[in-house]
């Protein structure tokens, strides 16, 4: 059997808040295989954002070990983490985080600029990704000329443009109305069926229910890890 994409063992993350030490992650262990579609849920302060930052290579654990696509996050230096974020992770944010002065196409090209991809190949791949998310007609639009749902599609195209091993979404529907949110979730389900491994961090149980699997966190620990029934998963799509 192939090793899982993500393997975490006894992850600990400590923060100092004044005199107090906060255990944001308290000995967390889990594994996520390739092709999984997993939601991490929990109230604020549960440690899910900390976990997401570590999964995305934005932060490193204080203790324990996490290996993603062969990379030991705790052992990487700054340049190594940057390369990891660039090659292995595709980020989707709640507030899209598009560069307002650049076109949809240029926004999608951005991660490939840091990968050193040639301009010609960049443009081709970005156009391909935008077509994939249904924005083939709006490549030269700027974010302000696009609706919220369209902006999030640009962000998803950007996340996928570097062909990452993991699509990491932080409240991807949080800034969208419910119908647009459902459309985005449908796109995620579709991408997952095509083989993209997805981890969504959310506090919205309805969003979590659209995933194949839900990991629930509270006070820095995993309190439940359940496979969603196929029926429920499909019903939402």
């Amino acid at each position, binding site marked *: 059997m192939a090793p899982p994409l993500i393997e975490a063992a006894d992850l600990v993350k400590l923060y100092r808040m004044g005199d107090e030490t906060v255990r944001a992650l308290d000995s967390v262990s889990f594994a996520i295989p390739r092709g999984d579609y997993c939601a991490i849920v929990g109230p604020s302060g549960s440690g899910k954002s900390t976990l997401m930052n570590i999964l995305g290579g934005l932060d490193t654990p204080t203790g324990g070990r996490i290996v993603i696509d062969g990379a030991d996050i705790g052992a990487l230096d*700054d340049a190594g983490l*940057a390369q990891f974020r*660039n090659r292995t992770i595709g980020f989707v944010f709640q507030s899209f985080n598009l*560069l307002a002065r650049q076109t949809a196409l240029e926004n999608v090209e951005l991660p490939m600029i840091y990968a050193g991809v040639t301009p010609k190949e960049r443009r081709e791949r970005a156009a391909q990704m935008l077509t994939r998310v249904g924005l083939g007609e709006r490549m030269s639009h700027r974010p302000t000329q696009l609706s919220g749902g369209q902006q999030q599609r640009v962000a998803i195209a950007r996340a996928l443009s570097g062909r990452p091993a993991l699509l990491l979404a932080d409240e991807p529907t949080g800034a969208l109305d419910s119908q647009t949110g459902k459309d985005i979730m449908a796109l995620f389900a579709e991408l997952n069926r095509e083989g993209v491994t997805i981890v969504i961090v959310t506090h919205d149980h309805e969003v979590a229910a659209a995933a194949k699997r839900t990991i629930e966190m509270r006070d820095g620990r995993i309190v439940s890890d359940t496979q969603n029934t196929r029926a429920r998963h499909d019903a939402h799509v």
Partner: protein
Amino acid sequence: MMRTSDLVASAGRALRANPLRSALTALGVIIGVASVVAMVALGSGAQAQVERSIASLGSNLLIVVPGAQRGGGGVRGAAGAAGNWDSLTLDDAAAIAEIERVTVVAPSQRARAQLVANGLNWNTQVEGVTPAYLEARDWRIEQGRMFDETEERQARRVVVLGATVARELFPNVNPIGESVRVNGGVFEVIGVLASKGQSGFGMDQDDVTLAPLTTVKRRISGRSRRADTVSQISVKTASEDDLGVVQEQVETLLRQRHRTRPGEDDFTVQNLSSITQTAAQTTQVFTYLLGGISAVSLLVGGIGIMNIMLVSVTERTREIGLRKALGARQSDILHQFGLEAVALSVAGGVVGLALGVLGAWLMTSLFSLPLVIAPQNALLAIAFSGLVGVLFGAYPAWRAARLDPIEALRRE
């Protein structure tokens, strides 16, 4: 690793995003570079002017005049002892000519005289000279010819007019072959000198008339006490390096001949190259001073760049966080913001250079100075503005590079 072309494009895009702000930020450097360039050009122009006008007196030239030098200042005739005015003789000149490395010796006698031609009057300096005078003073004949040795010995009544004199006395006529009256005598004009312009001391060097030395001694200068004295001896050496040694030898020789001791000289040897050097040094100090004061404004321009770059980093914190999340390394962010600062200051440097050259041109034409802009100074101005960008852009870029992506993404 980011491609250089992408880095440049990204910096260009960031600067175009806020054109007014970029322009105002660059303005500090523009003014700084423009004033440095203009001031240095103005100073170099003044320096070149001084050097040129002193060199126009003649190169590799020592001038021996009667009278002692007082103090450290300029030469004043020894007013106290009238006899000193007669201390130099033709024999002195002949003796100086024997000194090694002396190429030309030209004794001359100066007199003021009224020249009259065609009813026009002109009061000018009549210089009684030998034909060698032209070579000693690096002077050329513009028109006609110089008198020769024979004419000089025979005290012929011929004159060579300076450009100013020729213009004043013969405004519409070719002066060659015409006659002028000098102190009642009729002289034939055989030549006109090329123009030398003003001397470094503001004198019109063309307001002069050359006549054979013997002619002047006998018919114009009215100086009858001693027939063989001269008012000046021009000594030319083979090269500029010989001036110092020859000057000492001339001084020693004349002390022997005049039987005087050092400190009691009845003559003075002027070294034009040392005068040139002193004057050039003075104007050079002046140039550095102007340039230095202007450089302060360049410093202020650099601080302006740092200020705006810090504002820009704060404003774009979220963008920096995003770029880091997408895979930008610290060095990518450092280069991006550093390049923006350098681009701002170099653009300011280029515009400032253009404005500075324009300003220098305006000022030098206003003061009728030569426009001197050394290409290496222009390059230096650009390089220096780039350095300002690096120095003052480094800290904001470092701040940007060190931002924590998690914090940066959370910032509104």
